[in-house]
């Protein structure tokens, strides 16, 4: 049952003897059996056909498929088994201690919020319904806007963007509209960001047509004021910056940054995807920002990304409300309504008015905590992170580059470079071996300027016992790296798939994200 020499997990011995289910399950297309059906629909009754037609012949001809779609053909039971097996082959957020997915803010989303979001009272709403029939959800949207105004100090929020990157794109669009209004949009074609800000802060404005100037950190891990002064000019459209950055270091000169950018006529946008450690402590307004966004799916409970769905809450100061995407949800003292009368709006960044389940969950989460609770969330997240920092630094071969000896906010980008130099074991090897002890693997530590980077973010959700379990797993892997590096380099050993060839991820001729593409590429 247990690995040779292994012992049952207990409070004393915290390393878990985990083994993942392995079903060797094919892709669902490979399970397809021609003619097999999940549901057999009865023939249409003559009487009904006479009254309303057969449902197809009255469709425009060009909308009727010539051939049925090439979908897998399976019975209900086969489908059920297939997906249950797959679910057993994942390491979901509710199963493991997920603090290894640094920057993702993998916190616990209370199940009561999920229950609300799956209630039929909510799921049976349609976004095209008349506003008089959806006053309840409009009230929730409006009140969440009020909460976020308080949390950020800004003056109005929209929830239309369906994620952080889309919110950044909306910010870039608003910056563009603002300069267009003063006839400067052509001249002002540069957005400034920093290397340790989120990569989308550079990528999304490029999509909008901006040039990007990226500031490298100094030895202290922070972008220098002098570097920003070098970057700004009369071509500066704006600044898009994360604070704290993904190193977990808070930029204490952020107010100076916004002042310098404002002085040259630029607009300042705040990427608050790392807000989990600063709720109720610092605000966008006091730091001098004109625009900001929060990820409801990270900071405000509603689970992150694929566990999601995501929602980017975009906030602006009074001056920029006129550019927000429509509709805005407003209140006239008697009813909530959609305001489409925003003549200088950037238009829509997405259909309808936001990812409503995420909005509902965030509203519920804030209501359950109150203002004191929100601040406590941040205090506990920071405390957990600094406890973890101390414990990780006690491990051989680990370091936390930049800001040596200083505390961090809610996450830390560590480095295993010393361990790598001494043993040849890489960060990737370590994360693969951690899977053998039941911890999720995570590989995104962009930009890769910290050698052998490793990002941890414990959030407020995990108890000391769980953080200790994670540390015990890490300690075990570090010991193995020095004593028996091969076991780490060849990991995972107890997962669904052992070592895979990751080289294909960089090769467009080999990767396929649809079955059709797979068939096409594998024929070559």
């Amino acid at each position, binding site marked *: 049952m247990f690995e040779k020499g292994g012992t049952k997990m207990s409070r004393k011995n915290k390393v878990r003897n985990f083994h993942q289910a392995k079903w060797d399950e094919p892709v669902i297309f490979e399970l397809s059996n021609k003619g097999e059906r999940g549901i057999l629909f009865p023939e249409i009754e003559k009487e009904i056909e006479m009254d309303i037609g057969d449902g197809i012949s009255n469709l425009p001809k060009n909308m009727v498929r010539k051939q049925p779609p090439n979908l897998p053909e399976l019975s209900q039971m086969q489908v059920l088994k297939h997906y249950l097996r797959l679910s057993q082959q994942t390491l979901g957020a509710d199963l493991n201690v997920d603090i290894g997915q640094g920057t993702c803010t993998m916190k616990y989303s209370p199940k009561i919020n999920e229950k609300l979001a799956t209630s039929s009272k909510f799921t049976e709403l349609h976004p095209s319904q008349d506003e008089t029939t959806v006053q309840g959800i409009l009230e929730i949207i409006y009140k969440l806007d009020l909460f976020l105004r308080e949390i950020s100090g800004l003056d109005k929020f929209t929830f239309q963007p369906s994620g952080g990157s889309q919110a950044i794109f909306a910010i870039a669009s608003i910056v563009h509209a603002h300069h267009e209004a003063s006839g400067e949009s052509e001249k002002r074609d540069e957005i400034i960001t920093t290397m340790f800000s989120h990569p989308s802060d550079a990528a999304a404005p490029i999509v909008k047509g901006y040039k990007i100037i990226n500031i490298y950190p100094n030895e202290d891990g922070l972008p220098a004021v002098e570097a920003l002064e*070098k970057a700004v000019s009369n071509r500066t459209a704006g600044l898009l910056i994360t604070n704290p950055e993904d190193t977990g270091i808070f930029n204490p000169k952020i107010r100076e940054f916004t002042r310098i950018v404002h002085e040259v006529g630029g607009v300042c946008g705040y990427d608050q995807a790392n807000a989990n450690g600063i709720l109720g402590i610092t605000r966008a307004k006091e730091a001098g920002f004109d625009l900001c966004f929060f990820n409801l799916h990270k900071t405000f409970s509603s689970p992150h990304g694929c566990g999601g769905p995501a929602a980017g809450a975009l906030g602006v100061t009074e001056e920029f409300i006129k550019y927000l995407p429509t509709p805005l949800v407003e209140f006239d003292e008697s009813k909530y309504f959609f305001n489409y009368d925003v003549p200088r709006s950037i238009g829509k960044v997405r259909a309808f008015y936001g990812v409503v389940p995420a909005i509902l969950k965030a509203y519920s989460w804030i209501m359950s905590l109150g203002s004191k609770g929100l601040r406590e969330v941040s205090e506990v997240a920071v405390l957990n992170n600094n406890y973890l920092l101390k414990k990780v630094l006690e491990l051989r071969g680990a370091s936390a580059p930049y800001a040596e000896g200083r505390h961090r906010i809610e996450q830390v980008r560590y480095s295993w470079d010393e361990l790598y130099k001494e043993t*040849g074991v890489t960060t990737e090897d370590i994360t693969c071996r951690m899977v053998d002890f039941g911890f999720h693997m995570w590989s995104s530590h962009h930009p890769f300027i910290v050698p052998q980077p490793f990002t941890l973010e414990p959030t407020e959700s995990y108890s000391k016992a769980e953080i200790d379990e994670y540390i015990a797993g890490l300690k075990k892997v570090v010991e193995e790296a020095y004593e028996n590096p091969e076991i780490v380099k060849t990991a995972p050993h107890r997962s669904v798939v052992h070592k895979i060839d990751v080289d294909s991820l960089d090769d467009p001729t080999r990767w396929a994200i649809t079955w059709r593409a797979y068939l096409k590429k594998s024929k070559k």
Partner: protein
Amino acid sequence: MKKVGLIVNPIAGMGGKVGLKGTDGQAILAEAKRMGAEQVSPQRTVKALERLIPLKNAIELITYPQEMGEEVANQCGFNPKVIGSITQGMTSSDDTKQACKDLLKMKIDLLLFAGGDGTARDIYNSIGNEIVVLGIPTGVKMHSSVFAYNPLRAGDLAMIYLQGKVKELKEAEVMDVDEEAFRNGFVSAKLYGYLRVPFGRRYTQGLKAGSPPTEKYSQEAIAQKIIDDMENDCFYIIGPGTTTRTIMEKLNLDFTLLGVDLLYRKKLIEEDLNEKKLMEHIKGKKAKLVITPIGGQGFLFGRGNQQLSPNVIKEVGKDNIIVIATSHKINSLNGHPFLIDSGDTELDRLLGGYVIVITGYQESVVYRVIS
């Protein structure tokens, strides 16, 4: 079965601990030995070779006798094919060159060599661009970027290259300084050429979720940006390097990879200019200077591009210096600032601070420069 050549320069690195800044030449070697210097190259090579042990039966290791490879190969449990002959304890640059020639005939897939800049130069002079090589850093001078970061990484990179996991190659600089001048406190580094080495992007940076552009694609994007922004009534001085070379290739112009070329209205005025000729052309005229950091240490001026003298730099003016580099090249500096050693302390101070580096068609970074 893949064939791997191994050349160890056993005396490389001996001058380091005794402060001799290199061991090029028999007289200096004798001096190093007199001062108590011990061999360091073989032990460091072992660290790299040990990483290849899992491939022991899948590759054929071909090397030179005794301390030039045979001994370390045997120590790591390989059963190497030994060719050529040496006089034990008396190896020199000539042996390295001869070993290169012999290995070239054996049609090897990869040449691993252990040494420093002098060894890299010998390899370059003997084989040019014909074979893929990888340097195990064991020397004193390490200005070339043909070396892996340390012996372990050299071994690991060789391993994944031989397994076919790394297919991309990059041209890495071979540089060397004049040791005599170096000992007297002057650094006079010259760019000798380029060797083809495996491009370990994916390996050195760990598993990535996305697909970052290749080095070549980045170079092309940068070159196109420079070309599109070119002004009509302005000279463009194109410094040495593979990133700057791409500009000339895109314009279908002749160029010198190691020298400095001059353009006007996208036409070549003259190739491979020295300081005097450059000054004759640009004196009193508007000129821009396009440079890329040279070597593994990030020098903007003073290594490999001495034609761009303090006089030329002053004539062009600080605001007309355009620095270009791929993101990978900048990231490989691990946060260390760009360096300047133009020979004019006052100018170096003036050029220090922060510089905007063009890294893509719409992308640039602000990076620190120190002298």
